[in-house]
């Protein structure tokens, strides 16, 4: 589980200092889902970076299962990202020159998985997101929704503990958005992932059982017990 205490993040550029996060306290239980929303520039992405170990807070601690990501060595942090954190981006962030299968394989590279096994697992992950027929395609040959599915396969192929998503449907149309949301929630259920997602989309936020709103670097939590989720709406998703 995550325990964030007094997380502050300051960005300094020349003389100017921006406080992207100001004393954020947050706890996320294993297998929980947290949706983060808020105005642009509020600090959503910054918080996600702290949680994912992509950056370190200026002050405060980010503990994952008792390990403080703020203070462990760079090598350990890199290793932790490789093993435990799966990330999905708004812009998909696929390597443009690699095929779908190779893109998924990149997640297994730092874990030292043998090439043959790597290929097999990547193919399996792509099949589980409905792209079994597209293994050899490069990103430009895929639609936005398909690209995001490749990214999801890449995030999940290593069987991470945590799945982070920064506006995963931001670049997609509504229909595709529902597909992707359904897929993500299905996978979340299936694997008992800790799932943290940043979104601008209020219709997604409305369905979240637990909602964090970040404004000017400060966090407000809202519980929405009655929220209906995508997984219940889109049952056709094949388990991975």
């Amino acid at each position, binding site marked *: 589980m995550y325990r964030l205490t007094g997380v502050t993040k300051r960005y300094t550029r020349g003389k100017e200092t921006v406080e992207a996060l100001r004393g954020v306290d947050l706890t996320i239980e294993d297998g929980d889902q947290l949706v983060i929303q808020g105005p642009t520039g509020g600090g959503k992405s910054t918080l996600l970076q702290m949680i994912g*170990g992509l950056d370190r807070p200026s002050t405060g601690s980010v503990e994952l299962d008792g390990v403080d990501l703020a203070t462990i060595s760079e090598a350990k942090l*890199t290793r932790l990202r*490789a093993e435990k954190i799966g*990330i999905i981006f708004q812009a998909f*962030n696929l390597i443009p*020159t690699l095929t779908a299968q*190779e893109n998924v*394989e*990149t997640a297994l590279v730092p874990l030292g998985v043998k090439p043959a096994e790597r290929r097999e697992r990547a193919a399996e992950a792509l099949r589980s997101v409905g792209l079994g027929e597209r293994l050899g395609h490069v990103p430009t040959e895929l639609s936005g929704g398909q690209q995001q599915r490749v990214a999801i396969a890449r995030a999940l192929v290593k069987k991470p503990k945590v799945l982070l998503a920064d506006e995963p449907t931001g670049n997609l149309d509504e229909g595709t958005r529902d597909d992707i949301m359904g897929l993500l929630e299905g996978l979340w259920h299936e694997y008992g992932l800790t799932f943290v997602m940043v979104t601008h989309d209020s219709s997604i936020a409305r369905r979240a059982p637990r909602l964090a709103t970040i404004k000017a670097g400060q966090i407000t939590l809202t519980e929405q017990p009655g929220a209906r989720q995508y997984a219940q709406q889109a049952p056709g998703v094949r388990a991975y």
Partner: protein
Amino acid sequence: MFGIYLKRELSRRKKAALVIALGLALGIALVITVNSVSAGMTQAQDKVLQSLYGLGTDMTVTKARTAPTSGSSGRPNFQFDAKSEDDDSTQSSDRVMTQGGQALASSLVAKVAAQQGVSSAVGALSLNVTKVDGSFTQGKAKSSTSGQSNQGGPGGSSGGSMPQVQGGGASFDVNSYSVGGVDVTDQDLGPLSTSKITSGRTFTAAETNAKLAVVGKSYAKENKYKVGSTFKISGTKYTVIGIATPDSSDSTTDVYLPLKQAQTLGDAKNKVTTIYVKATDSKQIDTVKATIQKNISGTTVTTSADLAETVSGSLSTASDLATSVGKWLSIAVLAAAFLVAALLTSSAVSRRVREFGTLKALGWPSRRVTRQVVGESMVNGLLGGALGIGLGLAAAYTVTAISPKLTAQLGSTGGGMGGGPGGGPGQQSAQNTMEIALSAPVSATTIALAVGLAVAGGLIAGAMGGWRASRMRPADALRSVS
């Protein structure tokens, strides 16, 4: 993954890779071209020197020059009988002079041969024959005019210049040519060693005093001499037994005679003008030179290095150009190519900031990302090297195929140096002009240098790009730049 990723990047970003590779290729090609042209220049210079010396001649020994007592001392004086006005009979006169007017005793040849470090020594006598054919009633041949005529033709072969002197009803031709007396017992060294016998034969070792002649190709052509033809010098009849074609485009001697015959003609019994010396070790030439000069006084020893300093003309200009301008130009272009490759690689890396940030976010250690970048630019470098070697070879072969002609002027300040009687009688310094075709040989060292440069270029570019990549943070994966 390293290999696949590398392959994908290079094959799907061909243009970017090609731009970097081409930049490096250009620099490397230039280095190869300049290097091989320089080598060609050196070869050409060697050839020039060889054509004067003959292969295997390391130095020549000539009489030390004494200051000429008077400018006119060596000028020819012709004695014609000024006949009566009605007499129009043709007269002919040959004036034979030793080249440079100064000779050494032939006993010195053995003395030189006995010096330490000398492998062999051969004496030769260079003569200059000035032939005047005339029919006239009264008149004078102006000696100064005939003196100038000797410098007319390239290399002193005088066929081209036949000033007609007409004075007081006189009409006659002045024609001069060079004669080389060769030691028939050792023809590996000496004036004839720079030529190939292309018709007939050369002297046998027994023909030490035979009235036979080998004639230079162009002189033979001019006078329509063939094997079996005869001609006279100062009343002595010689039979042509062979035609000699010089190794280089220009000949320095027109007629070769056995040494004794030449000595008789030149009134130089037991004299030689030049001693050709071969050293036992070509690296010890300077030492040998010093030894000879110390032990045998009154001589001038000229090595090919000394001679090389006197080379002028377009060969020397081009050679200077290749070694100075060419060298700096190729260094500048290469440096520019390295810089461009480094900047392009670095900017290509910056454009992939999100890509590398993502890989780091996925848990790729920094060094793995850096290795990828360095690998890519190494391949670019090697590609550039391969292209550059191809381009450079093409350029070098083109130069060789065109074989531009360069002229070389040898200001021979030593009398009778190299058996090349370039000047006329008298002590005017002679100039030998010859044409040399330039080639651009590419050596293995040059290729190795090119490969080294390609690797260096790839490494420099890779270091730059790799450094950039290593500084990227996983959070860059979220940057909005694409």
